C-alpha cells in the first residue's frame, strides 16, 4: 500500500513551487503592511496566490487522507502503521499551530482594544478643543476688527478706497461688501490679478442678520486655515437694502500648522476607529490563512514522512512473507538510504546469514556421516578383488574406486567449508604482523602455481590484534580466489598493499588486493559476499562469505569493486586493536 503520492515529478515540483510562492507572498504581505499604499496594491494578488496554494494543498491532503482511510478500512498491508504515524505526526503539529492561532488572535484583539482605548480618543478630542479655543480668541478679535471697519464705512463715498485702506491696516486677505442677494458692491483683496471673491451662503447672511455677526474658522487645501467674518452694516443708507461686510483673515501660520497636525491625527484616529472591525477581521483572516497553510503543510509533511518511514518496514514485512513462501533469495529495494532502511537491510541480511548457517550446519552433518563408510567400502572392494581380477578388469576397478575415493575427498572438503561457515567463532586474539602473514600465505600458494606475478608493497606498521587461524583462512581464501580469477589471463598480476589508516576515527590496517583478471559481473558484484555466489565452475561459493564472516567477527570492514581498466580490487580493513 502507498499513501496518495504525487506520481509525477512535475506535479511535485508545482506543489513545491506553490509552497515557496505562498511563503514568499506571505513574507511580502508582512513587509508590505508597513507601507499602506504598497499593501493596498499588493494585498489582493498576494492573497489570491495564497488562496490558490491553500486550495491545491487542501486537495492533495484530502486525497492523501482519503487514501489512507480507505486502505485502513481494507486492512491493507502497512495501512494501520501509516495511519497511526500520520495521525501522530499531524497531531504533534496541529495542536501547537492551533494554540498559536488562538493565543495570537486573542493578543491581537486585546492589542487593538488597547490601541483604541477610550482615553486616547478623549485626549485627542481635548487637544482639538484646546486648539479651537486658541483659535476662538483670534476669531473674536477678527469679528471686532470687521465690525469696526463696518462702522467706518458709514457715510463714505469712495468705498473701494476705504476697503483697501482698512484691509491693509488689519492685514485681511479679503474684504467684501455685498447686499443680501449676494451682489458684490465693492471688494478689496491682497491677491493680484483676476480674483473671484468667495461669497457667503444665504444661510450665513441670515445668521449675520439675526445675530448681528457671523464668523467661522475655515480651511481650504490652498489657503490653509482662515477666519471668515460677516457683519451687517447698519444705517448705511436708510433707503437702501441692507448690506454686509465679509472679511477673510489668514490664521497665524504656526497656529495653522499645529491645527492641521491635530486635525489630521484626530481624523486618522477616527478612520482607524471606524475601521476597527474590518481591520480586526483582515488581520484574523491573514493569520487564519497563514495557520491553514502551516497546518496543511504540516499534515502533508506528516503523511509524506510517515510514508517514507513505513515503506522499508512494509518492504520487510512483504519480504518476510515471501521468505516464508520459500523465496530466500530476495533483495530489498535500495531507493532509500535512511537509518530505517539500513536497519531493515541489516535485519534481512542477518536473517539470511542465519538461514545459510543453519543449512550449512545441517548439510555438513548429514553429508559427513555417510562419507567415511563410502570411502572405506571403496577401499575394501579394491583390496578384496585386487587378486581376483585380471589386469584389464583390475585397471577398471582401480580407476572406479579411486574416483569414488577422490570424489569423497571433494565432498569432505565441501563439508568442511560448510562447517567453517556455520561455525560459531571462538576467537583467540593476539598481536600479529599482517604483512608477515600475507607474505607466508603468498609463498605457500606460489609453490603450487608460479604462473602469475605478485607485487607486494607494505607501508608502515601492519600489526593487528586478531585470531591467527582465522586470519590465515581469510588470506588463503582471498588469494585462492584471486589466483582462480587469473587462470585464463595472459599476464596475470596480483598486487597486494598494506598500510595503516585512520577511518572514521578508528585505527585500521588496510589490505588491498588487486588483480587484472576478469572481475565480477555487475549483477554478481552486489551479492559477492553472499553464499553460493561464484563465477567459477568448481567451488562451494562460500570463499568470500566466509571471509566476510571472519572480518565481521573481527569488527573489520570489507569491500569489493571492479577496476576501471580490468580485474577487481578487494579491500579489507583490519582493526588494529580489538
Amino acid at each position: 500500500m502507498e499513501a496518495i503520492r504525487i506520481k509525477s515529478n512535475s506535479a511535485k515540483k508545482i506543489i513545491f513551487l506553490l509552497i515557496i510562492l505562498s511563503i514568499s507572498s506571505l513574507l511580502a504581505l508582512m513587509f508590505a503592511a508597513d507601507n499602506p499604499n504598497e499593501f493596498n496594491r499588493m494585498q489582493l494578488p498576494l492573497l489570491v496566490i495564497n488562496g490558490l496554494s491553500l486550495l491545491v494543498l487542501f486537495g492533495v491532503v484530502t486525497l492523501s487522507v482519503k487514501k489512507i482511510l480507505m486502505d485502513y478500512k481494507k486492512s491493507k498491508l502497512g495501512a494501520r502503521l501509516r495511519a497511526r504515524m500520520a495521525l501522530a505526526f499531524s497531531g504533534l503539529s496541529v495542536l501547537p499551530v492551533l494554540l498559536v492561532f488562538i493565543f495570537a488572535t486573542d493578543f491581537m484583539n486585546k492589542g487593538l482594544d488597547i490601541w483604541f482605548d477610550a482615553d486616547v480618543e478623549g485626549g485627542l478630542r481635548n487637544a482639538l478643543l484646546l486648539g479651537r479655543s486658541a483659535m476662538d480668541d483670534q476669531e473674536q478679535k477678527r469679528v471686532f476688527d470687521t465690525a469696526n471697519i463696518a462702522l467706518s464705512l458709514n457715510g463714505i463715498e469712495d468705498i473701494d478706497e476705504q476697503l483697501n485702506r482698512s484691509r491693509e491696516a488689519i492685514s485681511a486677505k479679503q474684504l467684501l461688501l455685498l447686499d443680501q442677494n449676494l451682489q458684490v458692491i465693492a471688494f478689496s483683496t491682497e491677491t493680484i490679478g483676476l480674483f473671484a471673491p468667495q461669497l457667503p451662503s444665504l444661510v450665513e447672511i441670515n445668521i449675520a442678520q439675526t445675530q448681528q455677526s457671523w464668523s467661522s474658522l475655515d480651511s481650504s487645501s490652498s489657503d490653509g486655515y482662515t477666519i471668515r467674518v460677516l457683519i451687517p452694516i447698519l444705517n448705511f443708507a436708510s433707503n437702501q437694502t441692507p448690506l454686509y461686510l465679509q472679511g477673510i483673515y489668514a490664521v497665524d501660520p504656526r497656529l495653522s500648522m499645529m491645527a492641521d497636525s491635530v486635525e489630521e491625527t484626530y481624523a486618522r484616529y477616527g478612520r482607524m476607529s471606524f475601521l476597527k472591525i474590518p481591520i480586526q477581521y483582515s488581520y484574523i483572516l491573514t493569520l487564519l490563512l497563514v495557520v491553514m497553510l502551516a497546518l496543511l503543510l504540516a499534515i502533508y509533511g506528516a503523511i509524506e514522512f510517515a510514508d517514507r518511514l513505513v515503506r522499508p518496514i512494509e518492504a520487510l514485512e512483504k519480504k518476510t512473507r515471501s521468505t516464508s513462501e520459500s523465496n530466500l533469495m530476495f533483495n530489498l529495494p535500495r531507493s532509500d538510504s535512511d537509518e530505517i532502511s539500513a536497519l531493515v537491510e541489516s535485519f534481512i541480511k542477518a536473517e539470511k546469514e542465519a538461514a545459510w548457517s543453519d543449512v550449512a550446519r545441517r548439510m555438513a552433518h548429514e553429508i559427513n556421516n555417510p562419507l567415511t563408510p563410502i570411502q572405506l567400502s571403496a577401499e575394501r572392494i579394491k583390496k578384496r578383488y585386487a587378486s581376483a581380477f585380471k589386469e584389464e578388469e583390475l585397471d577398471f576397478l582401480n580407476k572406479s574406486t579411486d574416483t569414488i575415493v577422490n570424489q569423497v575427498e571433494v565432498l569432505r572438503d565441501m563439508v568442511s567449508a560448510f562447517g567453517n561457515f556455520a561455525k560459531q567463532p571462538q576467537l583467540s586474539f593476539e598481536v600479529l604482523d599482517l604483512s608477515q602473514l600475507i607474505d607466508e600465505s603468498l609463498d605457500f600458494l606460489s609453490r603450487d602455481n608460479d604462473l602469475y606475478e605478485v607485487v607486494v608493497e607494505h607501508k608502515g606498521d601492519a600489526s593487528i590484534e586478531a585470531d591467527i587461524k582465522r586470519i590465515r583462512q581469510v588470506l588463503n581464501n582471498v588469494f585462492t580466489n584471486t589466483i582462480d580469477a587469473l587462470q585464463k589471463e595472459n599476464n596475470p598480476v596480483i598486487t597486494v598493499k598494506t598500510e595503516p589508516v585512520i577511518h572514521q576515527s578508528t585505527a585500521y590496517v588496510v589490505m588491498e588486493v588487486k588483480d587484472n583478471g576478469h572481475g565480477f559481473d555487475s549483477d554478481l558484484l552486489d551479492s559477492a559476499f553472499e553464499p553460493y555466489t561464484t563465477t567459477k565452475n568448481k567451488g562451494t561459493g562460500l570463499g568470500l562469505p566466509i571471509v566476510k564472516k571472519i572480518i565481521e567477527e573481527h569488527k573489520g570492514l570489507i569491500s569489493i569493486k571492479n577496476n576501471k581498466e580490468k580485474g577487481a580490487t578487494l579491500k579489507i580493513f583490519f582493526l588494529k586493536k580489538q
Partner: protein
Amino acid sequence: MTKKQTLILFFLVTMFVGKTYAQDSNNYGESYLEQGVYYSNIRLPISFREDQVEALNSGLTFEIDLRFSIVNIRSWRLDRTIGEVDQKYLVRYNAFTRRYSLLNSITGRELSSSSLNEIELEISNIEQLPLIDDSLINIDESYKVFLVTYVRAQNIPRWMQSLTFWRENVDTEMETVEWKLFE
C-alpha cells in the same frame, strides 16, 4: 388560474413595479447645444446614508464619481460609446473647523459648509456641464447620455473593502440616469 395566466400576471406586475420605481426617482438629466458644445443640467439628489455620515465624521474622505457616457444607439448593431466624461468630488469633514468641504477634483473649486445638506445640494444640482463637442455627433443618429454615480470611501484598503460583507458596505452605486442627447 392556469399556469400560463399566472406567468403573464407575474410579468405584468413586474413591469408595473419597475415603471413605478423609475417614475418615483427624482433623478433627471437634460442636454442642450450651445455654441457647438452639448451641455447638460443634471439633478441627482445625492444624500449620504447614516453610516456614510458616521464614516465621514470619523475622518474618512468620500469620493463622488459621476461618470457620463455618451452612447450612439444603433439599430441591429451593438451600441457604441463615443465619449466619456468624469466629474469627481471629494467630500471630507474637518473636525477642527467643524465644517464639511467639497472639492471638485477636476476644476479645483472648493466649497465649505457647516451643513452637510448644503454640500449634498451642491452636488445634486449640476448645471452647464460641458459633455461633448458637436463635431463628434451625427445629427441623423440617436444618442443617449448615461450617468452612473459612485459614492466611495477613500483610503480603505481593497482587501478591507472585500471584507465588508461582515458589515454594511459604505460604498454605493446609484441608479443609472439616462436621457437623450437631443430629440
